[in-house]
């Protein structure tokens, strides 16, 4: 369902990826692979998977394991946790609801303190026990976290539109929408002072950590923008690198920059010339890439739907380790010592990484399948987003009118396979069945897919009932006023 809404909402930016099983067609729309006119895929030789659905005995180690989760019952109600920073075993988390201080020790994750309240989007450590936060409506806040239980806000500066943060040379740099970057002297955190400004940013969401004398802005409209801090009080905004996608976040590590580009994935750029970051390759993400972190040669990424990890010991050849769906909406990540700390909407999670494991991670294209009563053939795509081969070891269907085929029984990392379900229904009665697939994915070796009949006939041809609704943005629409235009209603739930 998330996939559907993302597909419908996209306006096809140049580098947008099509969903799994879809390819870019002649008219730039995403078309199913089987319908693509010049598809190079050879005719599929369907095989019968072995009958039976049991978890293989030798599952092996999983590269990513969720080990801890703090949720609303354990802490104050925080929604939309957007940013997280680590300081040794202390984690600072912000979102809608305020600031949380957490003991980030796997096995003993617990809340230390809470404070400030309100709605923030970014946070940055500025040393000496102080944090900088940017507020949705107000600009910059400085918070004293030496008082761990109830850290107070001690200063405010700036205005709405101040968002991205970077701490370098004892200056706090803050990006401002439609403006540029401010240099703030925070040597006295209780009295922050604006000391400089550099113009030239458009819709900056975040500023990277320093890389020598440079920081980089993630700008939604301009791309990755280098900012020269050779003169710390006069940040000089340089030439933007347009990557053809909205850039939401940037991380720097060594001479490499990782730009989170939403549906376009993670763009990897070389900083061999720090003034001119150069695109090298793009890593695909399952959902919309919103943040990355790099620690000990591992690249961590969150993309709304979960966490993905690559080994970047050779930065020009990232090696996928694994990818898992998180329970809610993963928006933030920080990492150290092979543990990823993920802010997952209302939960704060620890994920342990086993960098030697080569385990598969299967993603299904659909969580249930509907058939028309007259019978039909439907396909599911299995994608392997992990670091080891995925093996389909068995399949069962619970109704004799169904037959299952697979395009392959082994899917290499990064590849996809198809499962075809044929429903033959001479009696014309309802279907309420289950498909079971057994794989060697250690997170969940048994996949269960409901298969059912639905009827579309009752409403076709009837006048659509009229209604008036007001959108979340305040736009009022009446269905009957759309006569002459096709209207597509997507009725959805948030779970």
């Amino acid at each position: 369902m998330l996939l559907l809404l993302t597909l419908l909402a996209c306006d096809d930016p140049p580098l947008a990826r099509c969903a799994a099983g879809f390819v870019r067609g002649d008219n730039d729309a995403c078309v199913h692979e089987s319908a693509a006119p010049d598809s190079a895929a050879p005719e599929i030789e369907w095989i019968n998977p072995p009958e039976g659905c049991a978890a293989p005995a030798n599952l092996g180690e999983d590269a990513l394991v969720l080990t801890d989760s703090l949720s609303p019952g354990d802490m104050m109600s925080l929604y939309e946790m957007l940013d997280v920073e680590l300081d040794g075993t202390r984690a600072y988390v912000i979102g809608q609801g305020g600031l949380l201080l957490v003991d980030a020790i796997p096995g003993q994750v617990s809340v230390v303190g809470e404070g400030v309240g309100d709605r923030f989007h970014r946070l940055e450590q500025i040393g000496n026990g102080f944090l900088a936060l940017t507020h949705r409506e107000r600009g910059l806040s400085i918070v004293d976290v030496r008082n761990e239980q109830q850290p107070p806000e001690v200063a405010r500066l700036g205005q709405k539109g101040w968002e991205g943060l970077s701490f370098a040379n004892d200056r706090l740099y803050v990006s401002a929408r439609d403006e540029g970057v401010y240099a703030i002297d925070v040597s006295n955190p209780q009295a922050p002072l604006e000391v400089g400004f550099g113009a030239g940013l458009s819709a900056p969401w975040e500023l990277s950590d320093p890389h020598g004398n440079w920081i980089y802005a993630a700008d939604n409209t301009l791309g990755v923008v280098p900012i020269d801090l050779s003169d710390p009080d006069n940040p000089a905004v340089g030439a933007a690198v347009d990557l053809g996608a909205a850039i939401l976040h940037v991380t720097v590590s060594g001479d490499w920059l990782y730009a989170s580009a939403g549906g376009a994935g993670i763009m990897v750029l070389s900083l061999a010339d720090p003034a001119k970051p150069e695109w090298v390759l793009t890593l695909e993400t399952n959902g919309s890439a919103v943040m990355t972190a790099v620690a000990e040669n591992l690249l961590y990424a969150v993309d709304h739907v979960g966490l993905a990890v690559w080994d970047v010991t050779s930065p020009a050849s990232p090696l996928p380790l694994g990818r898992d769906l998180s329970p809610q909406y993963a928006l933030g990540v920080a990492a150290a010592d092979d543990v990823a700390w993920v802010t997952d909407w209302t939960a704060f999670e620890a994920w342990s990484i086993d960098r030697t494991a080569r385990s598969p991670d299967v993603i299904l294209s659909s969580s249930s399948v509907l058939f028309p009563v007259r019978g039909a053939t439907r396909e599911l795509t299995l994608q392997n987003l992990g670091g080891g081969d995925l093996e389909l070891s068995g399949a069962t269907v619970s109704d004799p009118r169904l037959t299952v085929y697979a395009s392959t029984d082994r899917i290499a990392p990064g590849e996809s396979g198809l499962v075809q379900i044929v429903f033959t229904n001479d009696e014309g009665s309802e279907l309420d069945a289950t498909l079971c697939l057994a794989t060697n994915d250690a997170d969940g070796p048994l996949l269960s897919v409901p298969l059912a009949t639905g009827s579309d006939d009752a409403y076709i041809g009837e006048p659509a009932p009229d209604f008036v609704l007001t959108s979340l943005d305040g736009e009022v629409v009446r269905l009957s006023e759309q006569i002459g235009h096709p209207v597509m209603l997507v009725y959805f739930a948030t779970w």
Partner: protein
Amino acid sequence: MYRDRGVRVWAIASADARQSDVEYFVEALDIDMPVFYDEGGVVQDDYITLASVPAGAYPQEWIIGTDGTVVYHWSQYDHDAIVDVLESQL
């Protein structure tokens, strides 16, 4: 996409959730089309959900043709079928 050719694409959130939850969901996923909250389940009462498993199967798509009648109603995302219907209406 099809919006440029005059198709109205409206996302309607079922009133099973609170409106504030829908707002968070929409903002977090950066959904770019008009989103409506079905307050009081008014739309749901008229557009009775498909009787199938899982109960109240979501998402459901309805396509209303240029003449105001229902031309398509299904669940899941059957890309080919939706494209065929929209093309026939344009």
